[in-house]
């Protein structure tokens, strides 16, 4: 009986995993397919990759994306770390407000708050562009970063910091020598994730970018709309390799941190 039930769910699982991977496999195959219409396999080529790498729009997009992602990540980390340090010693009611705001920033459909920010910026005559995009990304990125750092601060032992303070370290020194090192894996993971989310974003950027250089995902979106060329597949594969690597490193940073606490507790 047990075997039979697993046989059914196993089959569904296999189908679902194929469904998840097949489209990505098609992109990978087409990125080296010589046939420009991509209807049949036309032989191996790397020319789409060459085209992608030398495309000036893609290059400018990548530069813009890097600037936005790096700045938004740093801002998000500053907000998340200070917020989490406060959260550790806050009362339960203020904690609930804090947590509610964190979840809301993640749950609210991006379109809604991107339009809201767009409205405020245009009414206040604040120039749309890279600065506005960074502010927008940081709204949800700081929430993701907060969630990750928070998980770590919750398991942090205050006794260590109290001991350092008792031994005469001032608050800043306690933070730098005790709190920060033990938070580091979480901060690293949060930073990598924030960078990747920002790197990947379309909607917020689309609204707040104005006439500034569009970021890479927005460039890709307009290429898809106008069905420019098979080089989208090559760009896609390159972007995918980058984001998967970032996520994998972030994941290892988080699970590595979990491993070391478990070991130190044992």
């Amino acid at each position: 009986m047990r075997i039979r039930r697993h046989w059914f769910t196993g089959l569904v699982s296999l189908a679902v995993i194929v469904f998840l991977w097949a489209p990505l496999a098609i992109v990978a195959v087409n990125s080296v397919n010589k046939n420009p219409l991509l209807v049949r396999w036309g032989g191996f080529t790397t020319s789409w990759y060459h085209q992608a790498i030398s495309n000036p729009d893609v290059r400018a997009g990548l530069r813009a994306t890097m600037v936005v992602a790096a700045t938004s990540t740093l801002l998000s980390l500053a907000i998340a770390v200070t917020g989490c340090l406060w959260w550790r010693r806050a009362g339960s009611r203020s904690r609930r407000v804090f947590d509610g705001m964190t979840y809301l920033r993640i749950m609210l459909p991006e379109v809604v708050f991107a339009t809201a920010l767009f409205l405020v910026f245009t009414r206040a005559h604040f120039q749309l562009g890279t600065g506005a995009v960074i502010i927008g990304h940081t709204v949800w990125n700081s929430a993701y970063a907060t969630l990750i750092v928070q998980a770590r601060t919750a398991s942090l032992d205050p006794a260590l910091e109290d001991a350092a303070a008792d031994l005469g370290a001032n608050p800043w020194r306690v933070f730098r020598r005790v709190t920060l090192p033990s938070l580091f894996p979480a901060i690293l993971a949060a930073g990598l994730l924030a960078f990747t989310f920002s790197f990947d974003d379309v909607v917020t950027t689309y609204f707040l970018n104005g006439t500034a250089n569009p970021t890479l995902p927005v460039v890709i979106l307009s290429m898809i709309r106008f069905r420019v060329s098979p080089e989208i597949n090559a760009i896609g594969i390159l972007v995918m390799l980058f984001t998967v690597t970032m996520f994998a490193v972030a994941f290892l940073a988080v699970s590595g941190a979990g491993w070391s606490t478990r070991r130190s507790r044992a």
Partner: protein
Amino acid sequence: MLSRDRLLRGALALPTAAYVVAFFIVPLVVIVVYSFARVSLVTFNISFDWNLDNYRQIHDPLYFDTLVRSVVLSIGATVGCLLLGFPLAYFISRQPRTWQRVLLVFVIVPFWTSFIVRTYATVNLLEEHGPLADLLQTLHVISGPLMILYTPRAVAIGIIYSYLPLMVLPIYVALERIDDELLAAAADLGASPQRVFRRVTLPLALPGVAVGCVIVGIPAMGEYVIPEILGGGKTLMLGNVITDQFLTVGNIPFGSAIAVVLMALMAVVLLATRRFTRVETG
């Protein structure tokens, strides 16, 4: 000394508080205020006279259909994710540890690839003469080309494709926590496997199912990129109407009203599922 410490501690809340108020709460309040304003489509001047015209305009079949379609598509995609995701999560949770890890990697890695690229990838899959069409033709399900791309069905498939891992993970977490001995005890007491599943497994998995449905259903309702790419640029969902009103038409009060409706829908879903999701988030 103590008061200085407290002051310092309070100051730590400042960056988050200031940022959230300035760039999250204030904009949302502003958008609510604007949803009651009126715009002159000649001069684009906005006047505030607190009227409900924008909300009435949503009843216009053109927009009301989109509203209904957004809700139906997001419910349909959520149900689709559940139907595909539950068996998968269940299967993974019943495997030995090592296999659980391997299978989870297979589920999560596609989710780690760029969102826009993933959506583009589904275009390839659903193409008239694409791989799915080939497969369905070989199985004699269809005889001609596959006519799915740039229809609401394609959008639903795209949403399911992009959001599926968000459904699988919370259900897996809930199922994985179930003690095997609990299931064995139920079986020893004479419950059939179906009964064990219905009376023990399913109720314990419910919080995970609820979280999955919320984190799939709510973002799906406001989806912009997927209908834009897979819907062929028609205003299929609310996200596209809002974007159109803001960036192309310039009717900001009406766009704001739709955004407020979207927020209200989200609030309803969150409140309705609170009972189930609270357990999960602690």
